[in-house]
């Protein structure tokens, strides 16, 4: 038998593993966390089978750690992720994420005549409802819901 070349996604020594990302949200999570600007070893997997999500994504980020507030930002697109913090190959902490009360600079306001869509102004929302998701614009006071939510690219 011919030797198959196999790419092994090995365990990481130190860093963060984010699992149970809905496959369709993987690139949004990369964007929100600004991972394309971090020069560390990272592995992304997507469209992996998952009993819970159908298709899921996973990411293993070596030597990358997040503040809780930064990590909570991904809850907008991936509310059910499981986050493991790894130290010396061991899981030292498990975290869940939750949508923060104030959401700044991630989501575009749904209202085309909102000032934030017409001038260079960082968006700001107040979380008015978790389920269904409702974000109230600090400026125009309109509600952006999950079906209208557009993530602002960090790049």
């Amino acid at each position, binding site marked *: 038998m011919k030797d198959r070349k196999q790419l092994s996604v090995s365990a990481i020594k130190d860093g963060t593993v984010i699992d149970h990302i809905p496959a369709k949200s993987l690139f949004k999570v990369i964007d929100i966390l600004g991972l394309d600007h971090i020069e560390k070893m990272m592995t992304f997997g997507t469209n992996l089978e998952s009993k819970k999500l159908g298709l899921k994504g996973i990411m293993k980020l070596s030597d990358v750690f997040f503040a809780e507030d930064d990590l909570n930002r991904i809850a907008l697109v991936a509310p059910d992720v499981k986050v493991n913090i790894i130290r010396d190959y061991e899981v030292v902490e498990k975290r869940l994420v939750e949508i923060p009360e104030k959401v700044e600079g991630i989501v575009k306001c749904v209202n085309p005549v909102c000032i934030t869509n017409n001038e260079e102004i960082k968006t700001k929302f107040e979380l008015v409802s978790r389920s269904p998701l409702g974000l109230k614009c600090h*400026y125009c006071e309109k509600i952006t819901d999950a079906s209208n939510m557009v993530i602002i690219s960090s790049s």
Partner: protein
Amino acid sequence: MIGKSLVSIIDYTKDEYLKILDLAAKFEQQPKQKLLEGYVVATLFFEPSTRTRLSFESAVNQLGGKIIGFSDIGTTSVTKGETLNDTIKIVCNYCDLIVMRHPLEGSARYASEVSSVPVVNAGDGANQHPTQTLLDMYSIQKTQERLDDVNIFMVGDLKYGRTVHSLLMAMSQFRTTFHFISPDELKMPDEYKQHLDTLGLKYYEHKDFTDIIAEADILYMTRVQKERFSDPIEYERVKNVYILKNEMLDNTKDNLKVLHPFPRVNEIKEDVDDNMKAYYFTQARNGVYTRQAIITSILDLNK
């Protein structure tokens, strides 16, 4: 409220509403005082408005203040592409208070955050117009001699009308009963009805008001605009339902007053104007006193 911007009607508490209304009554007694002598108010109107701008400018002028500003962006740096941020940061060096109208929603909140002087929102797109709401409340209080236990009938475009939304939010601080009369396409949005539910306030929805008008203390008319309808046939069908005619006021309460934020097109027939119950022209005059109360409160000039 001293030194604070007024952007949205919910920026003020119930006590602050009452304080403004009390002061407005004093200004009605004596609208010409020298309280604003030495003060400069900038009126920045990024989109045209006749009544609101003149009302603010009259309010300031009668108190001895000076006005700078523009009513047409054609003559300003805005046409050269200047950002709102830059315009506000420059203008706040020249004045003690900014009154601003702008077509974009949220522009007033943003201006209040970058300005070193207080900003009074004179309308940001379809979002907020808090001084209109305070003058509406003043008109209600003055004509009904109370703010609690008033039956307010809101008629017309309740979906897009910012004046009815703001008035609802403000009057929900009092024991108000609301009646919403609108075509299906222009119904009061659920979020406002939920707000009333949370507070335990009563509201009723109707499609026509001819039969129920007898219960009203305040009839708050708004424009039903053709462009708001997705179906032009629907507009043709309902357009005459929301027009107030003089004879409709025959069997109404003696204390009933008809309010309208103006401009009107045809939703109040001109034969209503001479009826004692038509209050919309006096309502506009109340705007001057209310704005005098707001500006002098923010600048802390009422000793």
